[in-house]
């Protein structure tokens, strides 16, 4: 006992035993409540006094009590947790849940970002794939055209025709290769660029009947002249060829001036 701690160890034991009552009991409890050291000493005194419980004759509760207890806690289920901080330990379940939360929240965010990135990347890949398919179709078309040209020029029944200018002192010239079986005409020549809203139109003059259009065309630059391929009706007998200047889009019958012409037989 000291000035700071006016309670003797024996008094703590007597208080724990419950033999001190009245005002003395209240004063002692008031001091213990405000003094950490006396509070610890009182906890130890309560422990020593509690051992008197062993003086009681041995008795065991019936097994029904255990069953009733377990039945009751099952019926209660898991009560809602209180908001007060736990005193049990730093390793109880709740900190473990917090740890998992601290893992799952950023993991979910990373997963969401990765999903958006993959989705954008997937869209980009789709676009690229579509462009590649279009390019492939273009190359396939071009390859088919080139094969047609090779077949056209290599075919034994492809014929050549020279077309002469109608105007005197004109340097215009044109040469045709045609194949009535394949329905193709290849033009090469050096015709001037047509005026605005005008284009050249090729005519096949059959042995019998009116001139047949072999299509309108704008000659493309090719070496020192121009070259283009046009379609012609298949299986007709050609008497001659002529090229006229017609309105853009072509005409069903020749209307413009004849620029060049030549014998097809």
């Amino acid at each position: 006992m000291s000035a700071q701690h006016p309670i003797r160890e024996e008094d703590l034991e007597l208080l724990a035993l419950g033999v001190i009552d009245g005002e003395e009991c209240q004063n002692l409890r008031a001091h213990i409540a405000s003094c950490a050291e006396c509070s610890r000493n009182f906890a130890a005194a309560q422990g020593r006094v509690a051992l008197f419980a062993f003086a009681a004759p041995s008795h065991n509760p019936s097994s029904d009590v255990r069953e009733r207890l377990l039945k009751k806690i099952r019926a209660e289920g898991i009560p809602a947790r209180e908001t007060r901080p736990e005193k049990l330990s730093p390793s109880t379940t709740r900190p473990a849940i917090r740890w998992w939360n601290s893992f799952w929240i950023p993991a979910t965010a990373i997963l969401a970002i990765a999903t958006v990135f993959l989705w954008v990347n997937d869209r980009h890949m789709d676009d690229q794939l579509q462009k590649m398919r279009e390019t492939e179709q273009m190359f396939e078309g071009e390859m088919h055209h080139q094969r047609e040209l090779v077949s056209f020029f290599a075919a034994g029944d492809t014929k050549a025709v020279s077309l002469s200018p109608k105007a005197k002192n004109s340097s215009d010239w044109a040469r045709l290769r045609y194949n009535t079986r394949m329905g193709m005409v290849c033009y090469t020549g050096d015709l001037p660029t047509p005026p605005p809203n005008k284009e050249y139109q090729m005519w096949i003059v059959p042995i019998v009947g009116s001139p047949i259009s072999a299509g309108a065309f704008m000659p493309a630059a090719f070496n020192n002249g121009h070259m283009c391929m046009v379609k012609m009706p298949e299986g007709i007998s050609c008497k001659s060829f002529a090229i006229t200047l017609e309105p853009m889009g072509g005409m069903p019958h020749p209307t413009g001036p004849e620029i060049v012409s030549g014998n097809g037989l």
Partner: protein
Amino acid sequence: MNRAQGIENGASDWSLLERVVRKDESALATLYDRYSGLVYAESIRILRDAGAAEEVLQDLFLQIWRTAEKFDPERGSLPGWLLVAARNRSISRLRRRDSRANDELTETSVVLPCNLESAAAQNQLLGRIKKTLGSLPNGQREAIELAYFEGMSHSEIAGRTGAPLGTVKTWIRTAMDTLKRELT
């Protein structure tokens, strides 16, 4: 699981309480098997009524189930709290008082001078306490029993026994000294 199995279960009270916090029913059952005999024997000695003692026992373990997270192992031991709370509640029932507000897990700290988690420890302590109390003079033993099991104060014991108040105080103090000496 019976009581012996609960006592011999190697898990510490502390780890079992952690599992009770997580609502592990088997952990509470193990604690019950470990300490229900001690608590019930103390309670029925005070109340002398099996039904009332069973109610006290069940209430205490329900309180552990509901508020185990409040238990601070640094402030005491579980069997210490059980013995003190069972005594308080039983004496209160005996005297028609309500003492529950004073034995919350957070309010009552009890540090036992020994570990009661094993059956061997419990049996050894039981033998030593009975031997120590058996060696006390009748006056001292009766005064301690009236104080502990019936919750009487010095003056009440003097009134019951007819002994002078000073004598009662001496009996009790001497008995406590003897107990401490025998247990250290």
